[in-house]
């Protein structure tokens, strides 16, 4: 039952959904909402089947579809699941229905177009994760920009045009450099070995000279670093998050940011292993700067969404730290942190959306004593705050701890050999945990506790739909936090493979199923 056809169905289901939505008559908003939710739930169910049938003991791709697409240039339509993208695909499918359900009361105008865009971006995101051909990957990567541009630009806040243009131009600039690098890479592979192929497996473990590799990694890395986002390429994120509607923020924080780290892990580093090893100190420094700088900036924000936006920069710094540590624990911690951050940040943005619908302000100073007014809301908010900090038993702890442990594992032998920088950086990274606790707890204190501020009273507490969404997220957070072995089992072989390719630079040729 679980096979390549099912994977194709999972990928293309949102497109079928868009076609059906386009056919609904104008004004049938509730039909559109129910339909979108049904499509997303169906996709989640099918993805769950694939997830359960994903065999952790088999290396390489599973459920592969490989058909020639543009044969003259060696481009295939090639999709598959492996240990790296299986978790991220599951995350995307999990957040899908939550995103759709979360927007029911928030979006009232152009509802058809909105849900069509949400389904479109779901399709593009899944395609980016599933693509195993560099051209296909690039097409999906660029395709993500269009619906996001519209979601922020049409249903966003006051400065939405500025924010959405900034987002698109920033990201597209990186992507164009990446395209140049892609073309050069494929051309050079063809010139040296005569193989004309865009498939990932053919391109890994590049045999290009170090100098060329460093330029190409810089081009790929720029595009991915903008998406992660890494300091100093991060300034599009706060603006995009603040001006986007809740749905846009959840999609952005929940999945889109993982594209950058996924790109590094699947493409940037394995394609250019020697350059990665040469750049490791610089990458580690940038990761630690992201952690600390993001946390410091989160501390001084007055807009709730901006705090979570900067905290995302900080949390994804841990992912980068784990990835460049090239230690198995660190790599798996990075993957886990990707999933955890998607759940926690997505949940926090959903909660901010819920309170914004009630009080129409994102200014922290306007909130106070919410624990008295909205007790159920406050419970969920506190749980998500603690998950963001990385409290043990939540998924945040597993990811952060493993990433830091990986960084120390990698830094210690170098310290013993006399090279102290990685150890110093790892120690500084740990301070990010303290800073994370600082701004999140302070936010929770100001919003939930203290004197009750005069808001739009009476406030209604969470209704059944909102509770269902948050219960799903919290359940997932605790499930991963209490039993991380389950998701980690599926990633282990792929993580080892990644480690092997980057550390030894050995090519991956000939392992296509």
């Amino acid at each position: 039952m679980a096979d390549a056809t099912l994977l194709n169905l999972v990928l293309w289901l949102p497109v079928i959904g868009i076609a059906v939505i386009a056919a609904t008559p104008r004004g049938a908003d509730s039909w559109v909402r129910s339909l979108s939710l049904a499509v997303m739930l169906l996709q989640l169910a099918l993805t769950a089947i694939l997830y359960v049938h994903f065999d952790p003991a088999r290396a390489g791709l599973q459920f592969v579809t490989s058909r020639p697409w543009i044969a003259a240039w060696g481009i295939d339509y090639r999709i598959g699941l492996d240990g790296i993208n299986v978790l991220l695909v599951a995350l995307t499918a999990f957040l899908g229905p939550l995103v759709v359900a979360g927007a029911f009361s928030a979006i009232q105008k152009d509802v058809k177009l909105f849900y069509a865009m949400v389904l479109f971006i779901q399709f593009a995101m899944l395609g980016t994760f599933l693509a195993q051909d560099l051209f296909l990957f690039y097409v999906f990567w660029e395709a993500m920009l269009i619906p996001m541009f519209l979601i922020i630009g049409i249903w966003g806040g006051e400065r939405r045009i500025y924010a959405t243009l900034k987002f698109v131009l920033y990201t597209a600039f990186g992507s164009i450099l990446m395209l140049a690098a892609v073309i050069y890479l494929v051309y050079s592979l063809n010139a040296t070995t005569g193989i004309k192929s865009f498939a990932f497996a053919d391109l890994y473990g590049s045999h290009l000279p170090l100098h060329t590799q460093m330029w190409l990694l810089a081009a790929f890395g720029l595009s991915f670093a903008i998406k992660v986002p890494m300091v100093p390429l991060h300034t599009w994120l706060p603006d995009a998050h603040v001006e986007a509607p809740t749905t846009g923020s959840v999609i952005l924080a929940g999945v889109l940011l993982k594209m950058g780290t996924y790109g590094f892990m699947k493409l940037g580093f394995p394609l250019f292993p020697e350059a990665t090893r040469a750049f490791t100190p610089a990458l580690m420094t940038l990761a630690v700067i992201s952690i600390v700088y993001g946390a410091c900036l989160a501390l001084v924000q007055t807009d709730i969404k901006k705090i979570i936006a900067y905290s995302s920069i900080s949390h994804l710094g841990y992912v980068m730290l784990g990835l460049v540590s090239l230690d198995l624990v660190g790599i798996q911690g990075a993957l886990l942190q990707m999933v955890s951050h998607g759940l926690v940040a997505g949940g926090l943005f959903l909660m901010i959306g819920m309170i914004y619908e009630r009080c129409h302000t994102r200014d922290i100073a306007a909130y106070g004593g919410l624990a008295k007014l909205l007790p159920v809301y406050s419970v969920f908010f506190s749980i998500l705050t603690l998950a963001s900090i990385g409290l043990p038993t939540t998924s945040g702890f597993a990811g952060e701890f493993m990433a830091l442990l990986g960084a120390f594992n990698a830094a210690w032998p170098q310290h013993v050999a006399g090279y102290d920088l990685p150890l110093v950086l790892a120690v500084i990274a740990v301070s990010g945990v303290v800073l994370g606790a600082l701004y999140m707890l302070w936010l929770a204190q100001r919003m939930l506790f203290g004197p009750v501020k005069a808001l739009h009273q009476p406030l209604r507490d969470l209704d059944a739909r909102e509770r269902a969404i948050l219960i799903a997220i919290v359940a997932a957070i605790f499930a991963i936090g209490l039993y991380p072995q389950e998701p980690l089992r599926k990633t282990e072989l792929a993580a080892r493979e990644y480690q092997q390719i980057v550390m030894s630079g050995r090519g991956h040729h000939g392992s296509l199923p």
Partner: protein
Amino acid sequence: MRRHIVGFDIAGLAGAMFVYGKGLARGEALAARFPRLHRLLSGKYFVDELYESLLGRPLHWVSERIFLGVGDRFLIDGSLNGMASLAQRAAGRLSRVETGSLQFYVLLAVAGVVGCLAWMWRNG
């Protein structure tokens, strides 16, 4: 070692019983006799205030003024918005080439043709 720690417990218990065992009166009398010591102890040695002034406020100041103000707003966003406005101003200046005057365009076309012919004649 363990006995010493238990000793601290017992001493603390005994001290509390001594001061408060018979109501608040003795406690208040002691507070009046040693006001500065009382302030120090009830202020929890002012450790919180020390941390706030040594770490909390400087961190907040540096984050707000330097990281946010200079780093994010001035350097990064400043250069980005600056590049954008540079592109706009350059486009504005360059667009002056579009004069809309047919005679000018014909003149440019003729000059171009003459230049091409001259180049071809020069380079055989």
